[in-house]
C-alpha cells in the first residue's frame, strides 16, 4: 500500500495547488536560465553568423564588437591575397533607429559584400540580396515582412528576405544590406546637416572605411600563423574566432551574465528553502499519524518512504509544471529565452537533490516523534 499516494489523493486539491505554486517558481528559475542562455547566445550570434576563422581589425583595438574598429575597405584585397586565406569579406556594423509604420525599430545594420563572408547564415523566407542597392534581409524578430519597405537614412529599402537568430549583444534584430549601402548609411548626413557641412567647407565623412575584414582560411592552413602574418602589418590586428567569442563574453556581456547568474543562484536557493518549508510543514501536519504508524509497527523505512516520495512527487510535479509553462510562454519574452534539454535535466537533478535534502528536516522531525503521542491521556 503506497501511503504517500493515498495521502496525496486524500488532499489532492491542496497538493495540486502546492505543486502549481512550486511550478510557478520553477517557471521563473527556468526563465532565468533561458534568459542567461539567451544573453550569451544573442551576444555570440553576430560573431558566429559569418562563420569566420579570422577577424582582421584596426591595430590595438579589440573590435569590432568590444571596441570600435575602422579599416580602409581595401584591406580586404590585401588580406584575401595572403597565403592560407580561402576567402575574405569586408564588413560594417552599426545600430540605428528607424520608423516603420507607427513603430520605432532599433536595428543592427550589417553591411557585407555579396558573394563574400559576412551575410546571413540562412534565409528562411524570401531570398538573399540580389541587387547592389536598397535591398535588405531582416531578422524575423524585427517585425519586418518580405515586401515591406523601410526608410533608412536617406534611402528606402525593400525587405527581400528574412533570417533568424541574427542580433547584437543587446538583442537588437539585425538587417543585412550591401556593404556600399551600409557605408553610405554610415557617412551620409541628413540633407540639412549636409548643407551646413558644405557651407562650412568641411570635408565629407570618410565613406571608405569598414569595421573589420573577416576571413576563412584554407583547410590545411594554420589560423595562428595566418593571424601572426597579418599582425606584422602594424596598422592591423587579427583575432581568431575563438578569441573574438571569448572577448565578447568577457567584456561585453560579462557583467550582465554574472548578474543573471547571481540572480539565478538566489532563485535556486529560495526554491530550495520553499521546498524544504513545504515538506517540513506537510510532515509536521502528519506527526500524529506518523506516531500512530510507529505505534502499530510501521518501520522507519515506511515513514521515510511516505515523506521522501511526497517530496519527490512535489518536486518533479513542480518541475514539470514549470517546464510546461516556460515552453508555452518563452516566445513572448522581449529577449530570447534559450532552453536546452540539458538545462531542464540539470534543474530536474537539482530539484531531486533539493527534495531529498529538504526531506531531511521533515524526516528528522518524523523519526523523533514518540509513538506514545498517539495514545491519549
Amino acid at each position, binding site marked *: 500500500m503506497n501511503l504517500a499516494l493515498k495521502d496525496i489523493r486524500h488532499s489532492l486539491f491542496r497538493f495540486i495547488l502546492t505543486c502549481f505554486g512550486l511550478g510557478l517558481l520553477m517557471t521563473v528559475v527556468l526563465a532565468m536560465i533561458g534568459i542567461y542562455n539567451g544573453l550569451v547566445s544573442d551576444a555570440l550570434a553576430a560573431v558566429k553568423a559569418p562563420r569566420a576563422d579570422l577577424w582582421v581589425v584596426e591595430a590595438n583595438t579589440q573590435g569590432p564588437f568590444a571596441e570600435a574598429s575602422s579599416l580602409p575597405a581595401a584591406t580586404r584585397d590585401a588580406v584575401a591575397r595572403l597565403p592560407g586565406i580561402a576567402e575574405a569579406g569586408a564588413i560594417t556594423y552599426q545600430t540605428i533607429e528607424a520608423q516603420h509604420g507607427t513603430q520605432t525599430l532599433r536595428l543592427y545594420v550589417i553591411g557585407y559584400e555579396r558573394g563574400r563572408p559576412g551575410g546571413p547564415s540562412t534565409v528562411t523566407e524570401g531570398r538573399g540580396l540580389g541587387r547592389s542597392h536598397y535591398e535588405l534581409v531582416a531578422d524575423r524578430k524585427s517585425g519586418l515582412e518580405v515586401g515591406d519597405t523601410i526608410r533608412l537614412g536617406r534611402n528606402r529599402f525593400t525587405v527581400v528576405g528574412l533570417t533568424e537568430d541574427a542580433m547584437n549583444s543587446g538583442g537588437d534584430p539585425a538587417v543585412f544590406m550591401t556593404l556600399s549601402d551600409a557605408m553610405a548609411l554610415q557617412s551620409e548626413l541628413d540633407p540639412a546637416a549636409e548643407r551646413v557641412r558644405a557651407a562650412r567647407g568641411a570635408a565629407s565623412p570618410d565613406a571608405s572605411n569598414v569595421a573589420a575584414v573577416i576571413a576563412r582560411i584554407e583547410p590545411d592552413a594554420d589560423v595562428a600563423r595566418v593571424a601572426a602574418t597579418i599582425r606584422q602589418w602594424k596598422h592591423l590586428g587579427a583575432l581568431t574566432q575563438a578569441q573574438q567569442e571569448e572577448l565578447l563574453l568577457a567584456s561585453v556581456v560579462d557583467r550582465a551574465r554574472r548578474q543573471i547568474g547571481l540572480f539565478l543562484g538566489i532563485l535556486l536557493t529560495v526554491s530550495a528553502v520553499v521546498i524544504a518549508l513545504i515538506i517540513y510543514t506537510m510532515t509536521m501536519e502528519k506527526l500524529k499519524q506518523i506516531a500512530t504508524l510507529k505505534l*502499530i*509497527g*510501521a*518501520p522507519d523505512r515506511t515513514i521515510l518512504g511516505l515523506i521522501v516520495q511526497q517530496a519527490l512527487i512535489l518536486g518533479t510535479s513542480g518541475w514539470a509544471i514549470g517546464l510546461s509553462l516556460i515552453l508555452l510562454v518563452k516566445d513572448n519574452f522581449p529577449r530570447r529565452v534559450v532552453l536546452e534539454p540539458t538545462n531542464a535535466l540539470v534543474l530536474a537533478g537539482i530539484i531531486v537533490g533539493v527534495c531529498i535534502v529538504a526531506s531531511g528536516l521533515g524526516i528528522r522531525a518524523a523519526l523523533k516523534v514518540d*509513538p506514545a503521542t498517539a*495514545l491519549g491521556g
Partner: protein
Amino acid sequence: MAIGDLLVDVSGVAKHYGEGETRVDALRAVDLQIHAGEVVAMLGPSGSGKTSLLNIIGCIVDPSAGRLVLDGETVFDGRWLRGNLRQLRLDKIGFIFQAHNLLPFLTAEENVSVVLDLAGWKPAAAQTRARELLDYLEVGHRAGVKPAHLSGGEAQRVAIARALANRPRIILADEPTAALDSVRAQLVMDLLRKLAVEQEACILTVTHDEKIFDRFDRLIHLRDGRLSAE
C-alpha cells in the same frame, strides 16, 4: 472462567523520570499478570502511572527496572531483548485509542489492512481479512468510507478491527469508550470480551468509565505508581 495462557507478565517493573531532586517515580515495583481471555481494567487518578504502565507493556517506553514477558517471550529484563520493538508490537500487540486515531487518508478497510501490509501479508489476503473483520464488527458496509465520514461508534469499531487485524494476543486500550454513549460503550466492551475469548487474547484497558466497570473480569488500581488493590 478457565484460565488461559499467561500473556502479560510484569515483574517488579519500575519507571522513574529525571534524577536527584527532580526524580519522579511513575511506577514502583509493579507486578501484574494477565491471562488469555481476560478483560482487565486499569483505574487510577491522573498521574498514578496508568499511561506509563500501558506504554511499558506496549513496548513504547523503557522501564527503569524489572522484567516483562509477553506471550511467553521475555522482552525486557533490565534491557530490551529484542532489537526491533516495532516488529514486536506488530506481532504481539494491538492498540485501541481513545480518539481511535484512524489514518484520515485511508478508507476504513485500508486502515485495517495497513497493519497487515506492514506485517507482510499479500494485498488480496489483507483485503479479505480486513473485510472479514469489518463485517464481523458490523461495519463492513462502511469499508470504502474515510474516517471523517464515519460516526464515533463506527470509527471505534474500525479501530478495534485494526487492533485485531494481525491476530495479536495482547490488546491495549486507552479509554476506548470515552467518546461513546453508554449503550455503545457497553456494546464495544461486549465485543472486546467476545473477541478476547474467541481469539484467546487478553485485553488491558485504561478507563474512568464507571458504566462499563461490570464488563471487566478484573479492576486493578494504580496509586502513586503502585498497584494498590485488585
